[in-house]
């Protein structure tokens, strides 16, 4: 096994997802099969090979620091699940 049910539950917490107990077995099996398959990359010796992050060799794409029109508060908030006083509203973060 590449991955255990405990690992899957840990990854779910990192990904901010909940795996229902009845789904855990199937999901673990599917993830294990996929991780087993991708293991074939280890057949290749990649010592000294540069990793490729992007297809186009762009390192920094700078532009002039000029003031340009922005989307505006109203537009930015139009899809907010909850907004108040021009801000996104979220559940309480810091416990008192």
């Amino acid at each position: 096994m590449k991955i255990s049910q405990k690992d899957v539950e840990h990854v779910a917490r990192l990904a901010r997802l909940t795996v229902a107990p009845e789904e855990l077995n199937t999901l673990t099996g599917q993830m294990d099969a996929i991780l087993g398959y991708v293991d074939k990359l280890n057949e290749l010796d990649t010592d000294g090979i540069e990793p490729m992050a992007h297809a186009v060799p762009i390192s920094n794409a700078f532009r002039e620091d000029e003031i340009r029109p922005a989307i505006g508060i109203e537009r930015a908030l139009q899809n907010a699940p909850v907004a108040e006083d021009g801000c996104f509203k979220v559940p309480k973060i810091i416990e008192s």
Partner: protein
Amino acid sequence: MTFHDLTIQEIHQKLRSGELTSVKLTQDCLERIKATDGRLNAFITVCEDEALTAAAVADQQLAAGHEKLLTGIPVAVKDIFNTLDVRTTCASKILDNYVSPYDATTVTKLREQGAVIVGKLNMDEFAMGSSGENSAAGVVHNPWDTERVPGGSSSGSAAAVAAGQVVATLGTDTGGSVRQPASHCGVVGFKPTYGRVSRYGVVAFASSLDQVGPIAGNVEDCALMLGVIAGYDPADSTSVDCPVPDYLKNLKTGVAGKKIGLPKEYFIAGLDPDIKKAVDAAIATYRKLGAEIIEVSLPHTDYSVACYYLIAMAEASSNLARYDGVRFGMRQDTGEGLIGMYQQTRTAGFGDEVKRRIMLGTYALSSGYYDAYYLKAQKVRTLIREDFRTVFEQVDLLLTPVAPTPAFKIGKMVDDPLQMYLSDIFTIPTNLAGTCAMSLPCGFSGEGLPIGLQLIGKPFAEAEILQAAYAFEQATDWSDRAPGL
């Protein structure tokens, strides 16, 4: 249909002469959608009022002699493109209520050229899928056989063109999501070189692989659409500032003297016999047209699926972290704090395949596994890119099948994600290498299902692919057939 056998330029002649109006053409499309979409489910949102308004404006422009490349032409875009004041759902429950506050750059370019945007097309959720079955808006059906998948993830984009619902569409291609559905639906689809087309306003799946591409009924329309959307965009730092040629201008150049490579790794045992037959016939056609056919090798092909899924899933897990119920999309919250709200929202909002990929991507990026999975895949990606670089020193183009089988039955692979991933074997390597490729019809299976031919070109050599595709299309009649819906 009024336009099905016509190119965009031929429709324009009729619009100019007054034989046809954009309003009439748009009404025809809307009626065709009403008549066929109950069986296809290609559209998520139809913008009837907006389309008819835009068509009326186009007719005024035409009357005034102000014609642009797409004036009055009904098109549609995958529901992954932001379109001002219209819903953009990515076929996900988590974005079900999301209304775009701006246009994607490619959508702006369509509008600037006078296109009439008829609606938003169904897809695999967040572009993750190869069949059109992973959609919160329901499964998409293939116009040639509604019991089969249309391919994915730009499922509706291909099905809508094949069914004559609109003239042309935009899709996105991360690992074959334009080419494979185009192949399964018997239409023409193009994946441009990474950086050729702006990604601004296109919901991100895997940012180092995603690219926007057109789908059309013929090569000429595909070339025209590509010319409209291509070009540098200051709003996309990965778009490349290099000149965009006039893709229509030298379309009839032909392939005489061109060297076309056949990568032997793509002609493996297990390739569907109907596909092998159709592709072999295409090779013979190219020989007759004066091309030189050369067998070549892309030795790391067999590693591309593993490499691709690791990179795509890792990037997806990062990109999809933004769906947290704070700034947009749905929120589910039963008062268990901020983390609880994130978990409830994401668990209820994402579909199974999206969750599976986020999980795998998170795992591949997590502490202790990063080097073994993500970094390893990035190194293998370099080897795959070098394969292409070497081969393009020997040949001008590569010719391959698009998919190992024709469109499969709906439901056949839903329980076996790995099997589904392996069906992308011929399209994935071009995304990893960052180069350009096209799918065009080259035959039909014994069961009457379309078969696609893939042409792969050097980076930024889109024009060369289009010329070769045009020569093939003129020499054959595969693109002339339409499904009997």
